[in-house]
C-alpha cells in the first residue's frame, strides 16, 4: 500500500488496511488474532507490518478467537497496548473471554467487522454478531465509512486507556460493505497521533516486583458491588468519550457525537440507523426532502454506554421514528436496537410512535430505494396502528 503513515496525507486504500495502519500509528504493542472473513485483511496486514519491522509489537498467532482474546488479556494485564479484531463466529467463540476482559477492566481495543452468524452459513454483513455480545460490558461504537473506521480505531485506544475509564472498546464496522472497499481517507501524521495518544500508563500491571492479583474470585457478598462499579464506570465513560472525540475534532475537524442527526429540522418522520446504513439513509433522506417530504435521520454512533439523553433530545419533536435494525431477536420483539430505543423513550410524556424494520440481514443489499419503500410502509402502519411488533423488510412470501 502506498501510505507511509509518518505524514499526514490523503490516501486511497482498502478500509481494512487503513484500520491496520491506524493500529500501527497508535503504536499498539501487542496483538493476538485469528483470521476470519471479513476481518482477515486487518490482522493479515498487521502481521506483515510486524514481520517487516514497521510496527514494533508482539504478534501472537493463536489457534482460535478464544485464545486470541485470552492472550490479549494476558498482554494487556502486563501493561501493553493491545489490539485484536474479529467477526461473527469468532466473536461468538470469544464470548466468555469478552466478559473477563471488561470485568478485569483491561483497555483492549477490538475492531469487529460485523457479519451474520451461522446457520445457514453466511459470510456477509449484519449485526447479529455484536448484538449477541450486547451485554459484555465493553464500550461499543459504530462507524459509517472508512474514514470513521480509521479515526475511531485510534480514538478507541485513548478512550479505553483513560484512567477514569479503563474499559475494553469495540469499533464496529460493517463487514465487506466497509471492510473491503477501497476509498479515499485522510491520515493524520504520526507526530499528531503521538501527541494525541501518549503511551499507555496502566493503573495496575502484572509485575513480579510489585505483585497484584487480577481476576480474583468474588463471594456473593461482594460480586454485586464489583459489577455495579463496572456499570458506573461504563456509564460515566460517556463524558470521557466525548472529551476524546472533541480533542480529535480539534485535530482533524471531524466531530463525532453519541447521537448524530441529519436534516432533522422540522422533520415529522425520522429514520434511525447504525453503521454503514447511515450514509445510504442520508442519500435517501435528501431525495425525500427534495420531493418536499419532511424526513430526517438520526444515527446511533455510541451503542454502549447507551446515550439515553442525547437520543431523547434528538427525537422528541418527531411524530414517527422508524428504527432500522440489522439483526433479529427471534421470538422476541424484533430488533435489539428498536427494543432499546423504545425503552429509552418510554418515560417521556410525549414521544414519537416507533416502527421497527429489520433490513440487510446476511448481506442483503440496501439501496436508497429501500428507505423510500420503508417510509411508505411505515406511514401506512402508523395510520392503521402497527400490524406487527416488527417488519422484516423485503422478505418474500
Amino acid at each position, binding site marked *: 500500500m502506498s501510505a507511509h503513515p509518518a505524514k499526514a496525507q490523503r490516501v486511497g486504500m482498502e478500509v481494512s488496511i487503513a484500520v491496520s495502519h491506524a493500529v500501527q500509528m497508535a503504536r499498539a504493542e501487542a496483538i493476538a488474532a485469528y483470521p476470519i472473513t471479513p476481518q482477515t485483511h486487518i490482522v493479515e496486514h498487521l502481521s506483515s507490518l510486524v514481520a517487516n519491522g514497521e510496527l514494533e509489537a508482539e504478534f501472537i498467532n493463536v489457534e482460535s478467537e478464544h485464545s486470541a482474546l485470552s492472550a490479549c488479556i494476558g498482554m494487556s494485564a502486563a501493561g501493553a497496548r493491545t489490539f485484536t479484531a474479529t467477526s461473527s463466529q469468532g466473536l461468538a467463540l470469544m464470548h466468555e473471554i469478552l466478559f473477563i476482559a471488561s470485568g478485569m477492566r483491561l483497555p483492549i481495543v477490538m475492531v469487529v467487522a460485523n457479519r451474520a452468524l451461522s446457520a445457514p452459513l453466511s459470510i456477509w454483513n449484519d449485526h447479529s454478531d455484536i448484538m449477541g455480545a450486547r451485554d459484555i460490558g465493553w464500550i461499543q461504537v459504530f462507524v459509517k465509512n472508512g474514514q470513521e473506521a480509521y479515526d475511531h480505531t485510534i480514538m478507541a485506544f485513548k478512550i479505553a486507556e483513560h484512567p477514569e475509564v479503563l474499559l475494553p472498546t469495540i469499533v464496529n464496522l460493517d463487514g465487506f460493505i466497509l471492510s473491503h472497499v477501497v476509498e479515499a481517507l485522510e491520515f493524520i501524521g504520526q507526530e499528531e497521533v503521538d501527541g494525541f495518544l501518549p503511551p499507555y500508563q496502566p493503573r*495496575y500491571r502484572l509485575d513480579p516486583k510489585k505483585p497484584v*492479583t*487480577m481476576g480474583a474470585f468474588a463471594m456473593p457478598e*461482594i460480586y454485586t*458491588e464489583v459489577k455495579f*462499579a463496572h456499570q458506573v464506570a461504563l456509564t460515566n465513560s460517556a463524558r470521557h468519550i466525548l472529551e476524546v472525540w472533541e480533542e480529535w475534532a480539534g485535530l482533524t475537524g471531524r466531530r463525532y457525537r453519541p447521537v448524530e442527526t441529519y436534516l432533522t429540522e422540522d422533520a415529522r418522520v425520522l429514520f434511525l440507523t447504525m453503521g454503514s446504513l447511515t450514509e445510504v439513509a442520508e442519500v435517501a433522506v435528501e431525495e425525500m426532502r427534495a420531493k418536499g417530504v419532511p424526513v430526517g435521520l438520526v444515527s446511533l454512533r455510541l451503542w454502549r454506554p447507551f446515550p439515553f439523553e442525547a437520543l431523547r433530545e434528538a427525537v422528541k419533536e418527531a411524530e414517527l421514528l422508524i428504527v432500522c435494525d440489522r439483526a433479529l431477536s427471534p421470538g422476541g420483539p424484533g430488533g435489539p436496537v428498536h427494543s432499546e430505543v423504545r425503552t429509552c423513550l418510554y418515560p417521556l410524556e410525549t414521544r414519537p410512535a416507533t416502527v421497527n424494520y429489520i433490513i440487510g440481514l446476511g448481506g442483503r443489499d440496501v439501496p436508497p430505494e429501500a428507505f423510500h419503500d420503508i417510509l411508505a410502509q411505515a406511514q401506512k402502519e402508523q395510520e392503521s396502528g402497527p400490524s406487527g411488533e416488527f417488519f422484516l423488510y423485503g422478505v418474500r412470501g
Partner: protein
Amino acid sequence: MIKYTKPLEQTTWKEMEVGGVLTVPGSAREYRTGDWRSQHPVWTKSRCIRCGVCWTVCPEPAIVEEPGGYFDMDPNYCKGCGICARECVTGCISMVPEEE
C-alpha cells in the same frame, strides 16, 4: 478472594479497586483456613527422621520447620486434610480429632 480493609458485607461499590484488583500480595494469608479443621496432625518425635516429606506435600503449606529440624503444623492454616500423615515415611504422624 477479594479482601478489603472492611468486612466484605460492609464494603460499598465505591470502595472497589478497578476491576477488583487485589493490590496487596499474599492477602490470602488473612484467610484462616485453620477454621475448617476437624482433625490435626501430631508428630511422634522419636520416630521422626526429619526428612521433610510432610513439609513438601502439605497443600496449604501449613507445616513449619522447628528448631532442631522437626516439624509441626501451623494451626492458623492447617485444614486437617491428613495428607502429611498418609505420606509420612516412618508413619510418625497421626491425625487426632479436634475435640480431644
